[in-house]
Every structure is written in structure tokens, then in C-alpha cells.
């Protein structure tokens, strides 16, 4: 990569998520009251409003919910890249990229099984990306 992707600046409400990614963990949150899991991170439950929530490590398993292939590579990408939305096994959906997979309609099949793959960007920031489940790491 010649240029750097735009990288996140963590806030106090999201710092645990980015620290987890740095340690190779995908951290979600769950409500103590209604037990719903959610993402992105915030110190309350978006389903019931409870402030009683806990952080937990997700399995890293997901399926491909949808995507769009950008033929004009954005900053930090060498070629066409798919902006993907994956549905995590725990329920929440998140935006990401699919790696170790051609960025084509033929290869990116909706509902295909995926697993998280952490890609270090800087000493501070590691991004959770996803690859087809069972592909060699």
C-alpha cells in the first residue's frame, strides 16, 4: 500500500474496542438487563437504554450480509475493494473489508461464512477485517 487508510481516533467510549483489536480480540457489548449484544461501542444499551452493560469477546464468526465493490480505489487501497457489512454470530452487524478473497461478484457470495482477521495498521490501531472461514491464515 502506498498511502494509509483513514484511521480511527478512539474516544473514551470506544477505547476498549480498539485496545481489544490491538490484542487480537473482537470486543462487543451486551446489556445486563435485556441481554442484547450490540455494536458500535457505547456505554448504554441501544435497545432498552440501560446503562448496565458489559464487554465480552465475540467468537469472530460472521456471515457476509452485503457489500458494494468500489472500482475506484479509495485512499490506502491498491485496487477495487469491497466495502462489506458482515453479520456477526452474536447478532450485530459491522462494516469491514473481506481479505484473502478476490474482490469480485463471483467470489463475494452473500451469506458466505467468514472469520475475523486482525490487520495491524500502526502501533495504536489494528483493524478487524474478515476472511472466508477456513482459509489458511
Amino acid at each position: 500500500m502506498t498511502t494509509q487508510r483513514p484511521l480511527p481516533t478512539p474516544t473514551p467510549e470506544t477505547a476498549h474496542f480498539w485496545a481489544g483489536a490491538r490484542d487480537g480480540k473482537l470486543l462487543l457489548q451486551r446489556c445486563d438487563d435485556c441481554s442484547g449484544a450490540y455494536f458500535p461501542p457505547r456505554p448504554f444499551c441501544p435497545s432498552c437504554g440501560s446503562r448496565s452493560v458489559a464487554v465480552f469477546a465475540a467468537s469472530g464468526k460472521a456471515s457476509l450480509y452485503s457489500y458494494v465493490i468500489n472500482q475506484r480505489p479509495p485512499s490506502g487501497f491498491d485496487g477495487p475493494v469491497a466495502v462489506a457489512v458482515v453479520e456477526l454470530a452474536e447478532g450485530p452487524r459491522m462494516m469491514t473489508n473481506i481479505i484473502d478473497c478476490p474482490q469480485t461478484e463471483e467470489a463475494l457470495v452473500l451469506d458466505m461464512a467468514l472469520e475475523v482477521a486482525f490487520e495491524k495498521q500502526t502501533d495504536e490501531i489494528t483493524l478487524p477485517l474478515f476472511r472466508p472461514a477456513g482459509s489458511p491464515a
Partner: protein
Amino acid sequence: MKPRSVAVVGAAETTNLGTIPDQSVIGLHADAALNAMADAGLKPSDIDGVATAGTSPTDVAHYLGITPTWVDGTSVGGCSFMLHVRHATAAIAAGHAKTILITHAESGRSRIGAGRWASDPSSLSGQFESPYGVGGPPTRFTIPWLRYAKTYGVPIEKLANVLRSSNANGRLEPSSKVPRSNHPRRRPRRHHDRDSRSRN
């Protein structure tokens, strides 16, 4: 609100259209506003309400010499200006203002006085969307559509109608930037077309 008690009394675009490298965003707001006021036979001092998005409505008011009693800076994407019309109608009906100016300007091609497109890296989109190559609408608008197509078995060809309709609508506007080659070849519809169909 009494029916027909609020009306659009003037409307206009900037004096030049297309790529305009010699005017800033606030200049484009003012240019279009002055043209709209001329269309309505009004001066800045006749305006007591201002609404816009992207640029602060107070900046637009100050720049034009308007002292507003009512402002609206609702900014929720491209539909903001339609909401401004709704809010303005309600404000006039409620007596908060009598004559409201709604402006929109971008300097989309030239980016003069327009700041940067990039989102704040600590915002939610800056943290959880931008790192994955999400930028403008083309990098995300069809994502829910693709899921919908799979879930409900809609062929992708159906999406072509969106482009075709947009082009057809654009063709109705003489200043449209729709390339001529993309214009759908469609016969202008006339009333007798419908009449003849109903007779057959």
C-alpha cells in the same frame, strides 16, 4: 394552518452553472439567493428567516445582510432542503417569520471555500466506516439494496430503472448536467397518447 396560506414566491439557481472556479461556497449561496430574491421582487431586508445546511444559516444571513428572527440549520443529507421547506411552512404558519430564504450551495467540483470532504476520525463514521473505504454515497448506497435483492429475489436489472428515471427527470431541466448520450430516447408524452390508449 389555512390551506394556501403559504407559497413559494421566488426560486433561482446561481448565475453560472457547472464548474465555477471563481466563487466560494458562501458566494454561491449569495448569488443564488440574490437571484431568487430578484425573482420574487424582494430585498434582503424583506427576509426574516433563513434556512440552509452545510453552511451555517447565520453565516448566510450575515453575508446577505439579513437579520433573521428565525433560522433552521437542519442538516441530514440531501433531503435537508426539503425539510427546510416543511419547517419554513410551519414557522410561517406559527408566526415565527413571514418571508424565509432557503439556500443550498456546494462548490462540488471546484471546492472553493468548501473545506474538506473527510469525516472527523473520532466520529462514529470516522472510526467504524472510513477505515474500510467508505466515502461518499457511491461507496455505501447500494449495500442495503444488494441485501434486499437477495432476500426478496429481485433481479439487478431492476436497479437500472433508478438511473433511467433520474436521467429522464434530469432531462426535463434545461440546465441539467446529464450527458446527452445518457438521455433516454423517449418520445414526449402528450395527452392524446393516453386518450388513444384508452380508446383501443
